[in-house]
């Protein structure tokens, strides 16, 4: 008979209330420390994945459903499991300025120039900052903004 210890971990997605992902991750951590019979090995809340947290566990899905009953803001466990290969890209977040090049047309989505369109003049990938010039401004004034404060409208010719 096969009696070796089950070491294969499963990854489940837990649906959460909007913007409560970190609270749910902390809640699951708290619940597991209160009852160590739940074999949860890791909880991940990637920034890109809104409304869900991922739970890595040795338990079947029914045990995770039981676990999240005591966690506020956790709603349901998504049926089916995922694998490390499938969610591995969340562990290495790509820089926010990737996909933005000189000449790209962007819209500022935060700060005093929110809603303005601008052309990218320079990209600083180490600081994750970009320097833009506003489209409709009479005089070209370079403005440096954070890479996550813009939305790409047109990537231009590629």
């Amino acid at each position, binding site marked *: 008979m096969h009696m070796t210890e089950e*070491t294969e*971990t499963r990854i489940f997605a837990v649906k959460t209330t909007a913007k409560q*992902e*970190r609270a749910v*991750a*902390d809640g*699951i*951590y708290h619940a*597991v*420390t209160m009852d160590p019979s739940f*074999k*949860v*090995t*890791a*909880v*991940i*809340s*990637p*920034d890109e994945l809104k409304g869900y947290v991922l739970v*890595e566990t*040795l338990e079947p899905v029914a045990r995770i459903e039981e676990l999240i009953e005591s966690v506020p803001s956790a709603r349901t466990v998504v049926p089916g499991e995922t694998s*490390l290969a499938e969610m*591995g890209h*969340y*562990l290495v*977040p790509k820089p926010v300025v990737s996909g933005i090049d000189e000449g790209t047309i962007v819209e500022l989505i935060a700060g005093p120039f929110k809603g303005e369109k601008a052309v990218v003049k320079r990209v600083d990938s180490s600081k*994750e900052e970009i320097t833009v010039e506003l489209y409709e401004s009479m005089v070209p004034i370079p403005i440096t903004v954070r890479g996550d404060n813009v939305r790409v409208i047109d990537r231009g010719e590629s």
Partner: protein
Amino acid sequence: MAPQRKKKKMPKVCHECHKVVEGEVCMSCGSSNLTEDWAGYLIIIDPKHSAIAERMNIDMPGRYALKVR
């Protein structure tokens, strides 16, 4: 006038080891180079059995940030 809503405070994260830190100094590496500008949240509970901890080269349980600016 409606009361001003208090902004939720972000815990600080160590620049060196990406660990979420309570207080002003990182307990695991002793660094005081902390930041509130981070994203992505990872809690390692059992690093020995976790494939994610293995992939991230983490051998200590705790709370980590995936991205630190």
